[in-house]
């Protein structure tokens, strides 16, 4: 029994989307921290 195509699609497209969202989230957190003067 093999992993179906939809699982590979979920893994790869979902993973790439999460990486992209992750990098955007880090930038958003930095902007929010900077606004509140809470970077360090």
């Amino acid at each position, binding site marked *: 029994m093999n992993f179906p195509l939809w699982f590979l699609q979920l893994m*790869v497209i979902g993973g790439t989307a999460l990486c992209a969202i*992750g*990098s955007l989230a880090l930038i958003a957190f*930095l902007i929010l*921290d900077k606004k509140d003067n*809470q*970077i360090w």
Partner: protein
Amino acid sequence: MLTPLMFGQTILSAPMGYTLLALFSVLWISLGVWWGRKAKSYDGFAVAGRNVGLALGTATAVATWITSNTTMLAPQFALQLGIWGALAYSTASFGLFAFAPMSGRIRKLMPQGYTAVEFMRRRYGQLGSIPFLVISLFYSLTWLVSMSMAGGKLLNVLSGIPYEIGMSVVVGVCVLYTLFGGMYAVIGTDFIQSLIILIGLVVVAVAVMLQVDLATVHASLEAERPMLLSIMFPAALMALFNNMLFGFGEIFHSNVWWSRAFAMREGVGPKAYALGGLIWLPVPLVAGFLGLAAPALGIGISQPDTVGPLVAATLLGTGGAILVFVVVFCSLASSIDSLLAATSDLIVNDIAEPLLTMQSSDAERRRMSSVAIIGIGGLAWCFAIPNYGTLATVLFFAGPMVGSCIWPILGGLYFRSASPVSACLSMVLGSVAGLVAYFQIGWFTASLVGAAVSGIVFLVTNIFAKDAFEFATLSQTLDEQQEATAT
């Protein structure tokens, strides 16, 4: 069939490799010096003033956990163990999720703490702290040596820079910026490094998907390597559980993670580690996809450990090769700097200070840290320079050892009754059993056996030897502890 982009045996020319190495070396050292202005006190140097916010806290969890193994070994894992290989690698993120609530408790119990060994010493006394210190130092040094060796090898494979030069530059640059900026530099550079790694992976993955659709990748695997798609792949399933427990052990015990818990502002740790786990989880999946796509792209793989860079360079040309070089350099630096900083904390707080009869001043501790960072960097360089291949595999011995630390740490953090005898026996017997399994059965069972034996020993011995620990004593300062002991 695509022709891999190659400069002789490498994906990047040596002059381009040297230029990138020089550029990023100057950038990291300059940032270290810049942030070092804030690291005047020992608290600033060791734990970044204990005020790190959510952005840098999350990024440092992500970057530190992305080692060169994550970006280079995950495609190889997928190429050899299939989809399960990529999934197995991503389970290492569970360690970050599990450590999230622990980081909040650590920060609350020890608001002035510095290291994981300090917790074990104050929680279990010498019986618990000595085996834990031995395991911690073994793990830190073997990880540092294996990362240094990986640095030399990867720069050589990617651009032809001689191993000795690449390794020395990577170690030297990390020592210098950690020396100048301490934890401020480590966490600050981690933010930039995590962004570069994440964006780099997205660019490469999208380029692969534009070149070949996923249905073709799936069909190609089904026809040529059906085992890589198989749901029942016993070795890969064992690797999944082993990897997960290795990850738990690594994060729970290592001062790399504890020092960050102490460095983050109160309330930030749990959120930062949970978000860090969520951002880290897809990284091995995306990197692993490069390995799975290689057969469909018709890229011949003679060296499986370079499948990721080869796919990126073939599809994206010189730009892709540069991107891979930078991502690998960032992955290496983000782990090596963390190890240097966290291990120097262990040496100052858990070896030098307990041996000194007088409590050292802030300036003396700062000086000791600098000496420790240079010493650890020098030691790693000495072990790495002969380039003994077997030395890198020594890190895998640490799997069962760190796996056997899981229960003593959890028990010590959450249960008053967890006793020093239980902690000591579970770490020692778990490590021994795990190492026996490593040699008798295979690497993929070592952490599993180590953690299981350690857990059973911890539970059983705790029935006979119960403690009644007062958690409030962990927040006492050294003077308060001495006063309490005297009375």
